[in-house]
Every structure is written in structure tokens, then in C-alpha cells.
């Protein structure tokens, strides 16, 4: 199969992670501080939010939630309905790197997803 989205995003996330690790090694140089993520920033909880989109099919959105988050069908459907009825649903929250990875995957499936700081 030509389209292997999971692998592509996994590699992308790995590459992004390596870049971040590389840049944090320079944290002591004042000029670099603005370009790196401080521990405080990394500790802030982030949430993965999916927004309503009238084009994406409800069954498709449910399947994506099952695949990306490993949710059982019932839980995936609950989130899908929340997106449909309330305009958005928080699918996951936690530290930034996995949150970024989830948002990348969701964009690969063409869902409207964003990364937001909690609070």
C-alpha cells in the first residue's frame, strides 16, 4: 500500500522529538533560551481538541478516534457526538509531545484538530 499514514507520522514525531532534544542541550546559553521549551512550558498540561466539520462523515470521525486513541467504539462515538452537537470535544490531555503527535495524526485524517493549553 502506498499510503502508510501511521508510519509517516511516527517518523515525523520522532524527527520533531530529536530536534527538541537537540535544542534543550543549549538551555544554559541565554540567547538560546527563547528558542527552547523550558521545563515549565513542557509541564503545562495540553489538550487535543477536535472541532466540528460538516463535511466529515460521523462514521469516519468515529473510526479515526478509534484508530488514533485506541478508544472502544462507544467512547469514540460519544466524542464524535460531542463534536457534532457542541462544536468541539477534548479527546486527550497531558504533556505536550504526545499531544502534538495526536494532532498530527488527526490532521493526517483531515479532521479539524488543535493543540490547546489547559485553562
Amino acid at each position: 500500500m502506498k499510503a502508510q499514514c501511521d508510519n509517516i507520522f511516527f517518523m515525523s514525531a520522532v524527527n520533531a522529538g530529536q530536534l527538541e532534544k537537540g535544542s534543550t542541550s543549549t538551555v544554559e546559553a541565554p540567547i538560546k533560551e527563547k528558542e527552547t521549551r523550558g521545563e515549565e512550558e513542557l509541564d503545562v498540561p495540553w489538550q487535543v481538541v477536535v472541532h466540528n466539520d460538516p463535511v466529515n462523515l460521523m462514521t469516519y470521525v468515529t473510526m479515526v478516534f478509534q484508530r488514533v486513541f485506541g478508544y472502544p467504539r462507544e467512547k469514540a462515538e460519544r466524542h464524535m457526538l460531542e463534536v457534532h452537537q457542541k462544536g468541539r470535544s477534548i479527546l486527550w490531555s497531558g504533556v505536550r509531545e504526545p499531544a502534538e503527535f495526536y494532532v498530527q495524526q488527526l490532521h493526517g485524517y483531515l479532521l479539524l484538530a488543535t493543540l490547546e493549553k489547559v485553562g
Partner: protein
Amino acid sequence: MEICRQDDALQISDLDPFLAELLRQIPESTNPDGAPAAEARLFSRPSAEKKICAEWKSYVEPELRRLFRSATETVTDDLTQLNGNEKSLSNCILHIPITHADAWLNTLNQARLVIAAKYKFSDEELNDHDRSPIGSRRDLGLFQVNFYGFLQEFILREIPG
């Protein structure tokens, strides 16, 4: 037109020239060129934070473009089965290997999102499945969105998991 699952493939048969042409137009319909709203929908902003958006544009967006292009190429290859004499279409069967199902879902979704963004269809239009016959290019666009959605529904029903 008939669509069914046959072993490790989805089969579309009994095609009339109109629906065959809509199938052929799937790859072309994914092209957002000339429609900034379509481009913005395919590559939507990941965050309200500028720094995240800048990193995304450098590292993630190229991967997304590669993914979408790869899926579209798979669909384009499958659709070469429809090349040939229009009169023979009724005997033509389009085989879609089940391993290509993800590429089809992705490409159909690209096409639906691009068409919907180009014509700025309202929620009411997108939910109106009893629309009157096609009388304009815009009506045809809405028909395409619904037809491609029908194909997506079928694929979703047939793929494992």
C-alpha cells in the same frame, strides 16, 4: 452502479458514463489550487500559538502533503481500470484492493473537503440529500460531495476494525 465486497477487494460494477466520469474526477478534485479556502482547510492551523504553527509549517505540513499525494496516486492508479471505450463501461468492474481502502478514504475526504470549500456549501446544503436534479456546476459539486461520501460509507462498512 453496484458496489460490493469480493474477497480482498471492493468492486464497483454496472457503471454508467456519468458516474464513471465522477470517479475519474476524484484525483483532480483534490487539487486546492486557486482556492485559498480549500488549501486552508486541507492544511488547517494546529494551534492558536504562532510558534507551534511555525514549527508545524516547517516539519509537519510537508509530511502531510506527501501523505495526501501518496494516497491520491494510489487512487489514480486504481482508476486506470476505467480507461478505455465508454461503451464498454457497463462490463467494466473497478477493483479496489482492500489494502488501498485507507488511501481511498483519504483521497475521497480530500476531494469532498476541497469541493465543499470551493463552493462554500452551507450546513443545510450538505445535509440536503433530496436535492432537485443537477442544474449548475455548483449542484454538480454538491452531488460529487454526496456521491464520494456514499463511497466512503461503503468502504468504512467493509474495512476490518
